[in-house]
């Protein structure tokens, strides 16, 4: 892989639900070490894009490459093995399973000896998970479930972390906490982050770069701070 290659390259990506196309040729890239935010309103296609990148949603056209390799035909588990971990929309934790079992499932494809160390790191990031590690995950609050979902994704040791609306349904103070953790993961653990949000302000504030998606197409792109200052973005997504 040449060092100039982006970690994730999405080019002209299309995806459809039956005959209705939800993504009409989306192109974007995420470089190693970045936090990239994708913002957009209800039904713009954010979730569809993330699901297509992780492979649980079929693509109908375009290209997808990760770390210089074409992954457009790879199965979801092969993409996890390659280093992509998705925190799905609405968390989707395994409610009846113990918290620690949820985390161990994140490491399902790993055989190495450092799983225990990574588990300790997740507990270090989210101490509340450690306190209740034997309890069923369904008993956690919304914010704690979001932390568990992030922790589970981290257990696969991803190069790229895909986050689908981590702020959804959280109180403002928790939103700040979650975004602070994301920044820490990026800085301290070197995890590249691709973040999808309706909460454009929070997302663009921590992002190196950002994209705006509207009805299945990229409408704008730029530095996080530039987009935050842009009049059109402010009007449409920040309510100013």
């Amino acid at each position, binding site marked *: 892989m040449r060092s100039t290659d982006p970690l994730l390259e999405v080019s002209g990506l299309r995806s459809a639900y039956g005959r209705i196309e939800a993504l009409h040729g989306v192109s974007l890239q995420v470089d190693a070490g970045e936090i990239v935010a994708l913002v957009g309103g209800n039904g713009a296609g954010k979730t569809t894009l993330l699901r297509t990148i992780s492979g649980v949603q079929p693509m109908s056209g375009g290209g997808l490459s990760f770390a210089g390799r074409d992954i457009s035909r790879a199965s*979801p*588990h092969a993409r*996890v093995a390659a280093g992509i971990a998705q925190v799905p929309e609405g968390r989707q934790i395994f409610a009846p399973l113990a918290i620690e079992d949820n985390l161990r499932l994140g490491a399902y494809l790993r055989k190495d000896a450092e799983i225990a160390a990574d588990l300790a790191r997740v507990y270090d990031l989210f101490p509340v998970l450690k306190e209740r590690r034997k309890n069923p995950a369904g008993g956690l609050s919304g914010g704690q479930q979001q932390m568990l979902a992030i922790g589970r994704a981290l257990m696969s040791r991803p190069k790229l972390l895909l986050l689908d609306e981590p702020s959804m349904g959280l109180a403002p103070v928790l939103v700040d906490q979650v975004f602070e953790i994301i920044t820490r993961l990026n800085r301290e653990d070197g995890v590249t982050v691709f973040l999808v949000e309706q909460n454009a302000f929070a997302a663009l504030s921590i992002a190196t770069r950002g994209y705006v998606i509207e009805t299945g197409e990229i409408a704008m792109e730029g530095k996080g701070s530039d987009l935050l200052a842009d009049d059109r973005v402010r009007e449409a997504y920040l309510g100013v």
Partner: protein
Amino acid sequence: MLKTVLAPRFAVPLVLAVLVVGLSFALPSNFYLRVAALVWISALAVIGLNLLMGYAGQVSLGHAGFFGIGAYAVAVLPAQFSLHPLLAALAGALAAGLLAYVVGRPILRLKGHYLAVATLGFGMLIAMTISNEAWLTGGPDGMPVERLTLLGWRVRGADTWYWITGGLLVIGAWIAGNLVASPTGRALRALHDSEVAARVAGIDVARAKLTVFVISAVYAAVAGAALALVNGFVTPDKANFMHSIELVTMVVLGGMGSILGSVAGAAILVVLPQVLTSFHDYEHMVLGLIMMVIMIVLRSGIVPGLASLLTGRRK
């Protein structure tokens, strides 16, 4: 040490072993030993089906088909090819596993009712094949099964079969417990809860489902082979739809996702009809009533239901 012994994967086979040994003293006659052996055999098939239904959340209304394959393997292969009955049982288990592997790939893509109907059709296909190929299987009348001999010793008598089938059950429960506690077991429970989340965690969902489908088919075939050897006779009704439904009922009645529950479910449906014969014409009505009451009172099945009643009271 105590903690390891108390872990479910050791505790459950231990409890069953104690039960098998204990009952052998308590049961007064060969008739009871025979009924108990039938319970152990059904329980073995039910444990396998419970792995599929209770842990992985996939239904099969065709498992009697696999049961029939095991049963007819020990009937047909020794008769036609003078194969030793144990080798025949092994061949039956392999054939059931292989067939499950082949049909499981397309069928397990289906979900819920669609999966139920597809497995139903598959089971009926096997039952009809067994009934129709009379030259090989004796058709609807069934066929005799050669007696099992081990190193020149003829296996016979209700007590002998009680111990053999009880041993099979303990081993089956032990293997199932280990599977459930393994990463594969965790993956099964995960995909039961959310397939999408399981996929993005890196679980090959199709493969995990296929694995447990094959394992459950092998359990059913081994149970079928054991029943054929115990009875010394096979009939096609053990491969048919009603028997599939009976196995599913045992799983649900005993408790989804509970290995001890599988034994309880099998015990109820094997023992109760024997007990209720005194009700003559009303036998089935009373049985149905009891099943309904159990499900209403213990919603999650006998073992999980009783467990939550007990722990709930203690709190």
